[in-house]
């Protein structure tokens, strides 16, 4: 088990190193840099002025020096300085983190609470009208852009309930109820999509498990349907579901990017888009790297969970 974790971590670190190269190279490909964008509104900038700014931001150094410097920063957990705000990046990102984490956690919760029961119902009632209806509804979740769903939710609230959701962030200290509503709506918009995937996997995994011998034994023993499904079958059907939740984690971040924007929540994901549009390299580099690290850790955690949940899974070593 220990050697396995060490191996996985080693591969993970190599992957991250490769990612850092890709991210760094991609951002250097970009036509136009922060200096151009910062001064596109100011009109003409003399070449000497521009050079001074580039120097101040450390952008005049050769690429490999910039890259090495960035790697050193990552290793020492120094997130560098934002070009745009002229502030340490960490100072900007830290207050945004709780918003995104809360939204992500709520979305996963919504997705599981919606996805698992519908998947189970769909599997038990395979090929009935209910099964078809649930499958169409879940496929709808995969087809609707999360940001559009968010807009429609807001629109429905405004035009039917005559209630305008808070347009600025409400902290839980100020008004807990309003805060909960403010987060639940985007969590629904994002979670619906993820729930669709979870529902599909739950359904197919459960259908597979229900065909196994030990399930027939359970029925033969005269167990009630509820016990067979929820205690015997679902336990073994959960493994693929957990894998999907792990994979969904990466997709979720994509969903958050747009949803935070639509609901005007000051989160990391929305900030990432702004940083990309502003060519704020240090912020984009570090945020994308941070996302990559989170995704790799999430996958590792999922693999570890297998061993805990399913004693049949043993890691070599």
């Amino acid at each position, binding site marked *: 088990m220990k050697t396995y974790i060490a191996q996985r971590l080693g591969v993970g670190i190599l992957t991250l190193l490769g990612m850092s190269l890709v991210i760094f190279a991609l951002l250097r490909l970009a036509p136009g840099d922060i200096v151009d964008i910062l001064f596109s509104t100011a009109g003409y900038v003399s070449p000497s002025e521009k050079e001074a700014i580039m120097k101040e931001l450390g952008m005049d150094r050769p690429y490999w020096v910039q890259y090495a410097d960035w790697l050193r920063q990552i290793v020492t957990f120094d997130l560098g300085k934002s070009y745009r705000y002229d502030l340490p990046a960490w100072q900007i990102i830290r207050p945004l983190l709780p918003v995104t984490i809360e939204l992500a956690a709520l979305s996963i919760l919504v997705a599981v609470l919606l996805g698992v029961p519908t998947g189970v119902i769909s599997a038990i009632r395979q090929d009935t009208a209910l099964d078809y209806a649930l499958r169409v509804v879940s496929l709808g979740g995969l087809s609707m852009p999360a940001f559009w769903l968010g*807009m429609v939710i807001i629109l429905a609230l405004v035009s039917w309930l005559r209630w305008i959701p808070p347009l600025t962030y409400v902290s839980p200290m100020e008004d807990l109820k309003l805060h909960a509503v403010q987060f639940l709506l985007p969590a629904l918009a994002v979670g619906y999509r993820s729930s669709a995937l979870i529902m599909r996997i739950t359904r197919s995994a459960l259908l597979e498990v229900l065909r196994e011998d030990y399930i027939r034994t359970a029925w033969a023993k005269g167990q009630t349907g509820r016990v067979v499904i929820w205690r015997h079958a679902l336990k073994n059907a959960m493994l693929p579901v957990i894998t999907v939740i792990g994979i969904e984690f990466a997709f979720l971040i994509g969903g958050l990017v747009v949803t935070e924007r639509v609901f005007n929540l000051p989160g990391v994901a929305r900030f990432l888009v702004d940083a990309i549009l502003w060519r704020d390299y240090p912020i984009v580099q570090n945020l994308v790297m941070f996302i990559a690290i989170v995704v790799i850790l999430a996958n590792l955690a999922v693999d570890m969970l297998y061993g805990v949940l399913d004693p049949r899974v043993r890691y070599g070593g």
Partner: protein
Amino acid sequence: MAVRPAELAVGAELRPRAGAWTALGRFFRKKPLGAAGGVLVLVMVLTALFADFIQTHDPIATDAAYTLGPPSAEHLFGTDHLGRDIYSRIVHGARVSLIVGLASTLLGSVLGGIIGLLSGYVGGKTDLIAQRVLDILQGLPLLVLAMVVSAALGPAIQNVIIAISVPIIPRAARVIRSSVLSIREMQYVEAARALGVRHLRIAFRHILPNTMGPFIVLCTAQLGSAILVEATLSFLSLGVPEPYPSWGRMLSVSATEYAQKAPHLVLFPGIAISLAVFGSNLLGDALRDVLDPRLRGA
């Protein structure tokens, strides 16, 4: 003795080949949802092809006298904040969505397919290195990767296509590689090798055609997500630039601002995106059931 499904499948293949129309009819009966998806995709293709004929107005002509107009006989889906006809913009948006969706799906799938074919066929160290590089690409969320690539390349329709295709590459490579791994060990491949057929020819002429089933399934499945990513990128103004009408951009800043006064600004483009993606997802699901029995029900 009970008949196992595998034997049934073999029996099915022994049946004489039916004509294309009969096959299509059977598909409609067996997979009504998939057929519905096929019809949706077909409607989208036709809309894109004949956009110039079914438009009622010039999609980029503005009309200052009639901004944010509600749906009416003159403007079926109303007008936007610049007085442009939303129906005509959606019709033309189908063209942009389909071109970007198809082109990026094909580009990503073909590139990924070739990588998967070669790395699966060659095996060994090459395969291992290719897998690690693909891990790097796949480790990033699809949208984040597309966002960074699109921002890096700058706003242009061909750059959006490249940006969306990059995250598809590792997914395509995985699918093709796994089917190459099993096909590679088949006897007819061994026979070809014994006859002295060159490696490249074995890979492309003998193995590649047999990976077409999973490949088609992959493409239909990716088409929906490519359309979705295009809409999202355009929504974030990292996608298709003006003057092309794009569904995603129609939902962008202007729509969030005017949504309360003119809900049709939000509703119609979103419905168009959802239907297009829904159609290709339904079709993809059904095709997977038909063409790739190993994934059945997954």
